[in-house]
């Protein structure tokens, strides 16, 4: 019997910084196989929510359940091991290491090989390393960086680093990949490539949460959208409904994003 | 020995430690550099005073003043040549750099000055004054006077002047200093000058209390580190309180226990502190 509960459910999440409520009673759920978009004006609490969910910030209140397992209060590395993979707004890769080393690191905590086996170089460890290399080569190829795989990541352009970060996030076969502003500072060609990758991975069943400013991208690729404003959930629903939602338009009006939002909603 | 005498002696030493600790803490707060050359800077102050008093016949007070100024000038040169090139986040680089400077200064002093300890005689040596019925060496009382005056002055500068606001803002964040309208490099340079001047002054006023030699800075440096850790990194009032705590615990441990216990006191205080308040007396929380 297929489980009825959502893959990820976030309930009543709250977080304050010195008296300011960055996230205020946020509740939403992510279903298996969907692409959830999380949008909102600057400072609406999107990134803080993600940090709380992935253990990089400690929520004051609320709970996070992944596949029925409570993640509330767990450390970032434990949450990652539970199957919640993320990228960062300002792209993070290991600059000095080669692309291949980058992706290998992204997987090694997941294959259950204890450290002493790694030291002894046992059969199990070598097998795991071989499988990781294969998967790594596959993903580097998938994001289109195959020719670079032996070079240090420092050689990559900003957009290429975003692609590498995506490959790293996928290395552990996570239940959910959270992309924190995957398009920020990236040129249109790479944006199209990232969109295509997300779609094709999603058609194979990969679940995504995408936090973005690029509303057009969210409307195009997401099956459902959560809109945040001042730490609260303002609206939730399929893109077609969100586009028409008065409150959402109102929230964006008077802000710097208003024009972009208008264009994204109605300009095409 | 009477406990009150021990405590008084401890406070005296604590006040002088505070000079060194506050300077170290100030430099750390503004530049995020743990200055491993601070002990040698203190030594420079002491040797300068010994030279001025012994060879050039200066009086103690002008000699202390000139020594502190000279050391501050040296500190400024260090800042221009080396410290200003260290960016925030290059924390280890700052340590290694200042450690290298310390090695060079210390060995140059041994080479040119000789490692034999010297005794500095001033017009105030071998005289005692009476403080609330307790006898205190005059030279120590003068040292405390210097410490109180200069730390109070620093406090006033930091809290009452625009320049002080800039320094405090800079130890919180860079942009804030720009808002106050001061260039971070200038403010940081001033912080180094003040910090090294305080260390030089400490060396100068302590020179007649202890013997003077090029290796005298190493044990003091460590105490200053302990003070900064205990007080909370970059927290100046914390450094003052921590200095007094260290001074008194050392004095009590030495008077009631043994000389070894006196040496160990600073470690014991630090271990206790790290156990119960890992970020120091006034620090904010443990890292996540």
């Amino acid at each position, binding site marked *: 019997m297929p489980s009825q509960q959502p893959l990820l459910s976030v309930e009543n999440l709250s977080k304050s910084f010195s008296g300011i409520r960055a996230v205020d009673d946020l509740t939403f759920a992510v279903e298996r196989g969907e692409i959830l978009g999380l949008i909102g004006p600057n400072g609406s609490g999107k990134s803080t929510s993600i940090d709380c969910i992935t253990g990089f910030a400690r929520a004051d209140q609320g709970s996070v359940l992944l596949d029925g397992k409570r993640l509330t209060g767990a*450390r970032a590395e434990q949450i990652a091991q539970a199957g919640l993979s993320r990228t*960062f707004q300002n792209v993070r890769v*290991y600059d000095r290491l080669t692309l291949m080393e980058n992706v290998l690191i992204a997987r090694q*905590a997941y294959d259950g090989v204890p450290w002493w086996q790694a030291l002894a170089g046992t059969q199990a460890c070598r097998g795991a390393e071989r499988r990781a290399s294969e998967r790594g080569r596959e993903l580097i190829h998938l994001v289109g960086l195959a020719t670079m795989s032996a070079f240090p990541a420092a050689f990559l352009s900003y957009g290429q680093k975003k692609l590498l970060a995506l490959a790293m996030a996928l290395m552990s076969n996570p239940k959910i990949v959270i992309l924190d502003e995957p398009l920020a500072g990236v040129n249109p060609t790479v944006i199209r490539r990232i969109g295509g990758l997300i779609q094709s991975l999603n058609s194979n069943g990969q679940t995504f949460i995408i936090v973005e400013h690029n509303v057009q991208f969210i409307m195009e690729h997401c099956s459902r959208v959560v809109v945040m404003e001042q730490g609260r959930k303002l609206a939730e629903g399929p893109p077609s409904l969100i586009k028409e939602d008065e409150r959402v338009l109102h929230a964006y009006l008077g802000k710097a994003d208003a024009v972009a939002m208008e264009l994204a909603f109605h300009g095409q | 020995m009477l406990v009150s005498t021990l405590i008084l002696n401890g406070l005296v030493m604590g006040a002088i430690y505070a000079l060194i600790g506050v300077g170290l803490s100030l430099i750390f707060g503004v530049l995020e550099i*743990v200055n491993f050359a601070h002990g040698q800077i203190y030594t420079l102050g002491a040797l300068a005073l010994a030279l001025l008093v012994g060879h050039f016949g200066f009086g103690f007070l002008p000699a202390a003043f000139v020594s502190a100024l000279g050391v501050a000038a040296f500190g400024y040169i260090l800042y221009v040549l080396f410290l200003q090139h260290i960016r925030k986040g290059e924390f280890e680089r700052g340590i290694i750099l200042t450690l290298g400077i310390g090695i060079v200064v210390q060995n140059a002093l041994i080479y040119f000055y000789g490692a034999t300890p010297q005794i500095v005689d001033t017009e105030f040596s071998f005289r005692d004054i009476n403080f609330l019925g307790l006898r205190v060496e005059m030279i120590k009382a003068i040292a405390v006077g210097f410490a109180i005056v200069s730390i109070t002055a620093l406090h006033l500068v930091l809290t009452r002047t625009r320049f002080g606001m800039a320094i405090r803002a800079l130890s919180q964040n860079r942009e804030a200093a720009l808002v106050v309208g001061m260039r971070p490099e200038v403010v940081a340079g001033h912080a180094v000058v003040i910090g090294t001047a305080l260390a030089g002054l400490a060396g100068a006023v302590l020179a007649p209390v202890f013997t003077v030699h090029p290796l005298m800075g190493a044990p003091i440096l460590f105490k200053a580190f302990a003070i900064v*850790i205990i007080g909370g990194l970059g927290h100046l009032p914390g450094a003052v309180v921590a200095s007094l705590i260290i001074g008194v615990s050392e004095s009590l441990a030495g008077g009631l226990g043994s000389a070894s216990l006196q040496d160990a006191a600073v470690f014991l205080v630090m271990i206790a502190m790290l156990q119960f308040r890992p970020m120091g007396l006034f620090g904010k929380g443990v890292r996540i």
Partner: protein
Amino acid sequence: MAAASMNSPWPPLRRLGLSACAVILFTLPLWSPSDYITGIATLAIFFAVASTGLNVVYGYAGLLSFAQVGFWGLGAYVSALLVTDHGFSPWTAIGCAGAVCVFTSLAGGLAALRVSRDAFVVITLSFSLLLQLLARSWTSLTRGAMGIPGLPSPQVRLGDAILLDGNTASGFYWIALGCGALVVAATWWLLRSRVGRAFVAVNLDENLARSQGISVFLHQLSAFALSALIGGLAGALYVFKLGIVDPGIFDIYYAQMMLIIVIVGGAGHFWFVLLMSFVFTALPELLRLAPELRMILFGLVLIITIQFMPQGLGGYLADRRNRMLRRTE
């Protein structure tokens, strides 16, 4: 900030160089003009091993530790005491010394790593100073400043025949070389494994590593313990060269040497650090400088390196190679 690259520069050249070095090192006592030279080469081996320990914790895991000289001295005292007071053989004593160092580092690391990186530096420094103080003051155990004299020389036997006798300069050299090579090779193997890779990851970007399920704390702690083991073993064997251990084993000089070797060689650059151990041990002998002048020179080298080549020689060469690759790419 220290960092490491695991891609080796010029593999064929390196292999050739390594074999040449191995041959030179192995045959050194045979052509060495005097026991004095052999003794210096022996010292270089000790510095190479102890600095490799520092390289693990600083160069790879990114934690600047001043505890290395503390573990070096702790290992020295433990092995000396076990041999003189408890009748252990040198080899068992050295093994126990390594174990004690690991245990101490785990206990200390649990406390020190909870705080910030800045505090870690100061705490590791105080650890070394505290040990020195104990060595001087806990006279009932350590004999205080007089030290523990009359330590025997270790021997390597096969049955009744003595293969290597630590009493002779060349005998001790080969013993040190054998042990050193073993420790260095094991460390290299470990750093090449996924454990070493995680050390580097944690150093380069803590948050990224955490987001990939890698525990920063556990890896920092194990790197610290590994450095303690290496330093402890080196110190434990070193006392048998000295024949006596006293509080001077904690001398700041050893700490400065290890740091200079790692910084100039390049933190995180395994082979360059080994190379620098030999350079910085041999250099003062060649120059025949007064001790102060030698330290002034070393201090200047340290300042210049950190100012103009913060990644050390290894880092500088890796950078150049990368620039060349980039151009041809």
